[in-house]
């Protein structure tokens, strides 16, 4: 592209502000399109399942009317499942993208560096050993996730934080915590495969609307914490020094962002289990959609929700068996991780 060199700064300002307005408009268009896709997907999963319910009946059920038959299929079976999938997907996508941005590495997502494994192990311990339930489990999962994050951070710190070391240590910690989960599940008195699979791969089977409340609360609190800080998070992508030069208070922002990430990921894990690879995939997919160098947090949250919703639908109805959503997203994520490694080979650096 050939641009004639601007003569003065005064010439540059209208040009820049025009470009910025255009970029902002395009970003809003993309977010709107993703939101529309998510809403369409949500409505579709309410309408179509083993049987098909017409749209006007769905709307009547949603408005609180008692429709024989449809009230059960839509109100009791499909609505909680859809709500939980969307909320968990938003949390995983937002938390994952924030984590990848904070550590400046697409491999450093919470499910690879062990935060998800920590929350999952804490939740399983609470459910099986302490027989807790509800919000207590969410709190326990957050404590577990936060402890894991701090532990990995402390262990990876040696004259500064290196991405490669953090990822490797995270993989080691995750292996240890996953074996805790597997052991506790083997000890569980009422051994049910479906329940166990939720904690091994993540699933929204048997969702109840009551489970959505802690998830929604966490999404509003921790999600807004991240979104308020989204400008600082974007600045962090330039590197610590440049971000500091732009006026970002590094220590405070980093702490707030870590709390936000752990809160989102842990609550979602406590509700639906560690749905494989959603927090890992959502950020890169969103970055690919909006283009390089653009803010990804909101698009990533929407992409995460679309992934979980679509993965759950595919696992239920499009495949020969009924699979939990984590199996579907796990099958998607493995090849992408391998692609990243291959690309890392070509560019010769860590992702």
């Amino acid at each position, binding site marked *: 592209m050939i641009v004639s060199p601007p003569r003065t700064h005064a010439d540059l300002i209208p040009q820049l502000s025009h470009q910025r307005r255009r970029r902002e408009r395009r970003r809003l268009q993309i977010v709107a399109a993703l939101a529309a896709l998510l809403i369409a997907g949500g409505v579709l999963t309410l309408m179509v399942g083993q049987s098909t319910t017409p749209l006007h009946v769905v709307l009547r059920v949603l408005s609180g009317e008692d429709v024989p038959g449809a009230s059960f299929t839509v109100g009791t079976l499909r609505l909680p499942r859809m709500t939980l999938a969307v909320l968990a997907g938003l949390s995983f996508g937002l938390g994952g993208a924030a984590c990848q941005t904070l550590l400046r590495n697409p491999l450093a997502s919470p499910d690879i560096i062990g935060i998800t494994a920590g929350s999952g192990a804490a939740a399983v311990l609470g459910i099986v050993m302490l027989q807790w339930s509800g919000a207590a489990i969410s709190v326990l999962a957050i404590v577990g996730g936060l402890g894991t994050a701090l532990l990995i951070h402390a262990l*990876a710190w040696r004259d500064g934080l290196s991405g490669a070391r953090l990822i490797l240590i995270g993989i*080691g910690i995750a*292996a240890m915590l996953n074996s805790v989960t597997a052991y506790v599940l083997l000890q569980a008195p009422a051994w049910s495969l479906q329940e166990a699979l939720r904690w091994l791969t993540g699933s929204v089977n048997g969702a109840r609307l009551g489970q959505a409340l802690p998830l929604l609360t966490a999404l509003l609190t921790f999600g807004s914490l991240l979104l308020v800080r989204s400008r600082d998070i974007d600045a962090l992508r330039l590197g610590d020094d440049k971000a500091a030069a732009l006026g970002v208070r590094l220590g405070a922002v980093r702490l707030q962002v870590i709390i936000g990430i752990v809160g989102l990921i842990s609550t979602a894990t406590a509700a639906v289990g560690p749905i494989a690879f959603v927090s890992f995939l959502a950020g890169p997919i969103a970055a690919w959609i909006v283009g390089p160098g653009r803010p990804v947090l909101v698009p990533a949250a929407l992409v995460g929700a679309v992934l979980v919703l679509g993965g759950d639908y595919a696992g239920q109805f499009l495949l020969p*068996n009924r699979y939990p959503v984590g199996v579907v997203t796990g099958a998607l994520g*493995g090849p992408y*991780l*391998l692609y990243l490694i*291959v690309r890392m*080979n*070509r560019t010769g650096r860590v992702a």
Partner: protein
Amino acid sequence: MTAILHIRRVAIGRPGWLALALAALCLTAVLSVTVGTRAVGWDDIGAALTGGTETIGQAAVALRLPRTALAALAGAALGLAGAVMQGVTRNPLADPGLLGVNAGAALAVVIAIAYFGIDTLGAYVWAGIGGAGAASCFVYAVGSLGRGGATPLKLTLAGAATSIAAGSCVTAVILGRNDIAGAVQSWQVGGVGGATFTGVIPMLPFLLVGLVVGLLSARHLNMLALGDETASAFGVRVPLARGAALVSAVLLCGVTTAICGPIGFVGLIVPHLCRLLVGVDHRWLLPLSAVTGAALLIAADVLGRVIARPAEVDVGIVTAFIGAPVFIWIVRRRQVRDL
């Protein structure tokens, strides 16, 4: 630290360390037979060793004998396989569990059970070896594509990705088959409980071949450690030497995983420990790794039996708890550039 170890190395010497490791193996084996979930008196142990199974105590000890043998064989196989893999890939983080070899073997065994109706241990072993071989080729190929060759970080990530993908596939296979789910689930954790002598026998020929080929490749591994070009200048046929060593590692891991389930971290920590004791000469490192691996796995099994009485903790979980901190220590000790 290194200075102290160096002095000790001179004082005790390599044969001394090997003798010490053998003594540790004997000690843990005795512990494994005498200590367990049920406390058994010496009379019963003596009677059980001569074939008696009249009392509950004697029967318990009779169950512990094959279990000890299996733990020793599996530990030796994993320790040796880890040392060979670290030598071949010149990669300090090589471990059959981390590199996805165990996950590949697990997937192959589960597929064999679910779709081909295979239910004999001998057939499990073949499936396990096939899966381990396919997974290790795949991980190594992905990890070494392009610039820089197979760095530890790339190999570990490729292994983690392969493990997760294989795990998803295992779940997908089990879900369709509720009848085999329970058996596969407990096998997936990795344990030596419930071993019988007839169950151990199908392993033996494969283990023997793997052990012999692995130990014989020691001299070539020493040469390969100098770099491929130097090794070929010394007259080593590099692809052949590397291939033979990898085949032995795959045989050992595949067989062990097929019988015991995936057991991680033994292959990682044992060679590192042994390298501290006898240095980098593979002619000493490989046998010592095998003996130490056997002692470690038996010890982990005993620990798992007593730590949560009256329940048992599977040995795969115990090794993960011992191994992950060591893994982190290795990662921290090295410069990031090396990773």
